[in-house]
């Protein structure tokens, strides 16, 4: 699509000619049916501000962009003029190991950030899917998390302060750079998980943690999913301090390298070696009470990475024609019930694989089916069974025909009216990632 010269000039004036892509390069920025007029690569926050100011004045719809790995989330944008790629804002601005805090720009890849924090033997305990590519801004914008949240929580527990560019280009901050702060509203929380619809995250200050001296992981397999789940509840309510506790059904377990065919727990404990040893004994004892076999995984880091990514990887595997990935939530005590109900509700139409972060009741999985209709039916049925448990299901990625049949976000939740009013108050012209979030925000 040809770009109006005046707009290109305007963009060039802000970010230089090498900071604007048009033409064939735009294909990888396609979202649903829409392709932007241009992709811009600002170098600093003032350029972001000026770009947004321009977009605000011209009424151009802007999609903030990191690595793009999670852009399948949500509805396709209702309007789409510019992709705002933040990859060049990729610096660590402050890092003081003694304060256990760091400040970094949104475009930095998590993997690069972790390398930087290694100098202080610390890390940011976030392990979202596709972590090797994901950028800080994308992780925070999507409030993405992985199995490590069991011990460390999510971005909302880790981010202390934030800098955001608003729709009109104004830059504001929220929170502070200290670990404890109750000055003013905790507005930072609003931007986390807002999918770029309220503002563009420029940088964040977060709490980092000492990297544990050692970590070990074990497969605890049981014949029945329910037994593995009961064991997980037992572990999580005990004095053990596991870093991650994941409940996998048979297919997910096999995909992630479980030594057993059936359901399993994958558990890791981190700390000083003597403490790991002591806890490992207790873990094995508890597992024994539930008739579970305990096997240490010698390649745990790789398994964990695979487990974080598993729905994505699994969806791409050869098999039936169409794949979808999803995430759902239930009570921690309902994980097994939810997984079994999903299996029963969808197995007629699709192959399923699921894993749950039991501590928080987060289930994620993949379906593969012969036809989009079958896939849509299995997603709808699964959503229904989770809703019966008070839970929800969000479709993270699915082919367009499936999206046409299943609302990716699901039915609106309580407070959506307030959210819509917030969106209007922060972005009156609706230029930030318009139409992508719940309630058409």
């Amino acid at each position, binding site marked *: 699509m040809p770009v109006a010269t005046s707009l290109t000039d305007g963009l060039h004036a802000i970010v230089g000619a090498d900071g604007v892509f048009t033409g064939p390069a735009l294909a990888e920025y396609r979202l649903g049916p829409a392709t932007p007029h241009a992709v811009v690569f600002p170098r600093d926050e003032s350029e972001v501000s000026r770009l947004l100011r321009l977009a605000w004045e011209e009424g151009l719809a802007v999609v903030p962009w990191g690595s793009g790995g999670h852009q399948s989330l949500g509805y396709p944008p209702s309007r789409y003029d510019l992709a705002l790629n933040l990859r060049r804002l990729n610096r660590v601005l402050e890092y003081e190991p003694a304060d256990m805090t760091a400040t970094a720009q949104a475009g930095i890849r998590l993997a690069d950030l972790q390398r930087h924090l290694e100098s202080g033997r610390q890390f940011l305990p976030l392990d979202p899917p596709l972590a090797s590519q994901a950028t800080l801004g994308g992780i925070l914008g999507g409030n993405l998390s992985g199995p490590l949240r069991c011990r460390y929580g999510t971005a909302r527990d880790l981010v202390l302060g934030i800098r955001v560019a608003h729709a009109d280009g104004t830059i504001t901050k929220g929170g502070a750079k200290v670990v404890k702060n109750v000055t003013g509203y905790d507005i930072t929380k609003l931007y986390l998980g807002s999918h770029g619809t309220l503002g563009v995250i420029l940088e964040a200050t977060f709490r980092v943690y000492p990297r544990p001296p050692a970590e070990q992981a074990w497969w605890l397999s049981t014949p029945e999913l329910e037994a593995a789940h009961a064991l997980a509840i037992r572990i999580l309510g005990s004095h053990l301090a596991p870093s991650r506790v994941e409940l996998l059904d048979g297919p997910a377990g096999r995909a992630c390298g479980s030594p057993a065919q059936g359901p399993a727990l994958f558990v890791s404990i981190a700390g000083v070696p003597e403490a790991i040893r002591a806890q490992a004994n207790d873990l094995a004892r508890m597992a024994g009470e539930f008739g579970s076999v305990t096997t240490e995984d010698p390649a745990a880091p790789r398994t964990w990475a695979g487990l974080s990514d598993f729905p994505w990887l699994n969806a791409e595997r050869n098999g039936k024609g169409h794949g979808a990935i999803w995430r759902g939530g239930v009570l921690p005590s309902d994980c097994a019930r939810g997984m079994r109900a999903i299996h029963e509700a969808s197995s007629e139409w699709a192959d399923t694989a699921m894993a749950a972060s039991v501590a928080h009741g987060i289930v994620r999985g993949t379906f593969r089916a012969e036809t989009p209709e079958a896939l849509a039916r299995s997603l709808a049925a699964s959503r229904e069974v989770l809703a019966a448990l008070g839970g929800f299901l969000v479709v993270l990625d699915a082919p367009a025909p499936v999206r046409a049949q299943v609302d990716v976000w699901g039915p609106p939740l309580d407070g959506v009216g*307030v959210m819509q009013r917030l969106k209007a108050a922060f972005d009156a012209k609706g230029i930030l990632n318009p139409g992508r979030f719940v309630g058409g925000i």
Partner: protein
Amino acid sequence: MNGSGLAPETRTHLIRSCERIVGPEGVISAPDELRVYECDALTFYHRVMPDLVVLPTSTQQVADVVRLCREAGVPFLPRGAGTGLSGGATPDAGGVMIVLTRMNRILDIDVPSRLATVEAGFINLWLTNAVKRHGLFYAPDPASQQACSIGGNVAENAGGPHCLKYGVTTNHVLGATVVLPDGEVRQLGGKIQDRPGYDLLGVFVGSEGTLGICTEVTVRLLPQPEAVKTLLAVFRTIEEASNAVSGIIARGIIPVAMEMLDREIIKAVEANVKAGYPLDAGAVLLIELDGPRAEIEAEAVGVEATCREHGCIELRVARTDEERALLWKGRKEAAGSVGRITHHYYLQDAVVPRSKLPKILREIGEIGGRYGLIIANVFHAGDGNIHPLICFDLTTPGDLDRAIAAGSEIMKRCIEAGGSVSGEHGIGHEKRDYLPLMYSPADLAAMLRVRAVFDPAGLCNPGKIFPADRPEGHGDRNLQSPAMTAVSDR
């Protein structure tokens, strides 16, 4: 000082209508009774009586009262136990005070999912007591935990000594039933996590009752640790102690609490409770580790070595629960004990990056010297959350002004050091004029935009947090916000 100058007929109408909603025994309107609601735990300069107090017993009643206020255009504010230190639960200029002390039931305890839902008036410590037998506890432990309500904790995003490891209230609240300022009842968050949508709960927690009134709260419970170890490290100087704090963290150890008491506080504590702190010490650090036994044994070795490296002259480990309780008793009663060394004090609350502790403490010492005031320090060193107690005497002319000026200077130094003007006491009425020190007009405008979305009429706890929100001609103009967090006015 009396209320907002409501027209008598409006007041009568409100009283009658509230009586219909909550019953006559739930409405307080006699002046001699309203008087006790003219301040919270901040007593010093801002005292304003509400026009009436209503004590609902259900979310529906709260919603009905809020709707009534909105229709009448009368300001309203929530209050729990009234233990806050920043005047948040004191009216700005009268209006209806909605007191949630009669909503104090446990609604649900879900042991396998480790969740509890309680009404807003439920007291913090009761929760831990109620779930103890299941091997669980509720982590946020503000100093007032024996009295403060969970709803108040949500409003203030309360912290406590043990939040160094476990985090503050916002990290433990999963859901809240709130009555929005338009009287609508909404569920923010919930037992089931990660529902898509903006994190309204996240911004509600810590909004000091300005975005609505929370009536029910769902919180996360944690399993009790296998073991706890409490150590007392004695240092010659507060500087050495501060360096030890950073050293412990740098070693990769996160104690569950690291509390510092300086020489003046030690004096006061020993005069009061006799916790056994050495009187010749420059500072003591109270360090607590919890977790799997083997883990904390290893950490204790590291803590001890670090303290010794930084000049610790004595290190004690509590061997029994009684010894542990005694070491903590000194910390817990520290503020209460300050009465032993001064008649009046004002308690500040600010935060600096942990690595700036030695610098800020030096500066506080200098400021005290310059103003001729004793400033005692007892604080959450692990978080960099300082609580200077500026000692003064109301009967000495000029002492109060000096104390206020010294406090203000400390605030500014904390901001310069990259810190915050409140770590846990909140802004409330007292520190609202300090907000511009930390936030630009644009930063504040974004927050006010949130406020306007929730409360377009500006009736919900007006006059709190934001400087621009202050209605002219209301409130106490005699003392222009010295931004004092708490002043003992004996």
